[in-house]
């Protein structure tokens, strides 16, 4: 990553890291706060997962440098995401032949 190579851009990066840290801390407090609202389960899960996904994306994009990475890494991750979605979908197969309990 050529953008990382001069001292000036690294110092800029460091400022971004600190900002992201503060953002992640705020989002953590938000997740905990929201969980005390006694929302319906489906909504609570949705809200928690949206916040977690946003936090995870920040970590991946900024700390793991994914916002400026080589194409090959993106392709590896696209494959990973596809297989991950399949994994998450597998439990629903168990409900094809039986009624949902809840």
């Amino acid at each position: 990553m050529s953008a990382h190579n001069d001292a000036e851009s690294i110092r800029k990066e460091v400022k971004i890291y600190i900002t992201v840290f503060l953002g992640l801390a705020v989002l953590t407090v938000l997740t905990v706060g929201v969980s005390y609202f006694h929302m319906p389960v489906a909504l609570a899960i949705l809200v928690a997962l949206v916040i977690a996904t946003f936090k995870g994306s920040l970590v991946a994009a900024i700390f793991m440098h994914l916002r400026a990475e080589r194409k090959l890494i993106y392709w590896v991750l696209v494959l990973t995401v596809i297989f991950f979605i399949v994994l998450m979908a597998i439990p629903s197969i168990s409900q094809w032949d039986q009624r949902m309990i809840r």
Partner: protein
Amino acid sequence: MEIPYTTETRPDTGLYNAKLGVWLFLASEVMLFGSLFSSYILLRTGAPSWPHGRDLGLSVPLATINTMVLIGSSVTMVLAWASLKLKEFNKYRLYMGLTILAGFAFMGIKAYEYATKFEHHHFPKTNTFFAIYFTLTGLHGLHVLGGMIINGYFWGPGAKMWETDPERFTNRIEVAGLYWHFVDLVWIFLFPTLYLL
């Protein structure tokens, strides 16, 4: 034999080898944790009722502190790498040391939480919730421990490489960081799943 492409980028991938290697490893890690999350969904949707973690005595405040600790350690990890890029080795030592200390703090709090569970006779065999709770947090804890060992090596004896091959050492810290951030990322999902929902 020299390991190829430790610092220079390989023409066909555009990457140094360790980075691609660690990303492929992380892809397999996504599958490992993914399959357990998938099991969690199956167990939860298949159960007639599912408890709130906090109703079973899981401590939300402790887990919140642990989340902050791990997020903080991710920042110090990336600052350790940035310090090497800026050729400030002493700062690297400081930030890497803080990252390792945060690892100890996380494991200490986790151990305390486990001890409290055991005191209340909550074991993996107790019920489905605790079975998946201990599996997921246990596997995650092992990953934290693994990261601490790697980071400890690069803080101590492994840091000698800074004298002989600084660029390669910097890359090692970058990929060790990729792993550490991944462990943080997993926790970001584990925390709400087990404690809050």
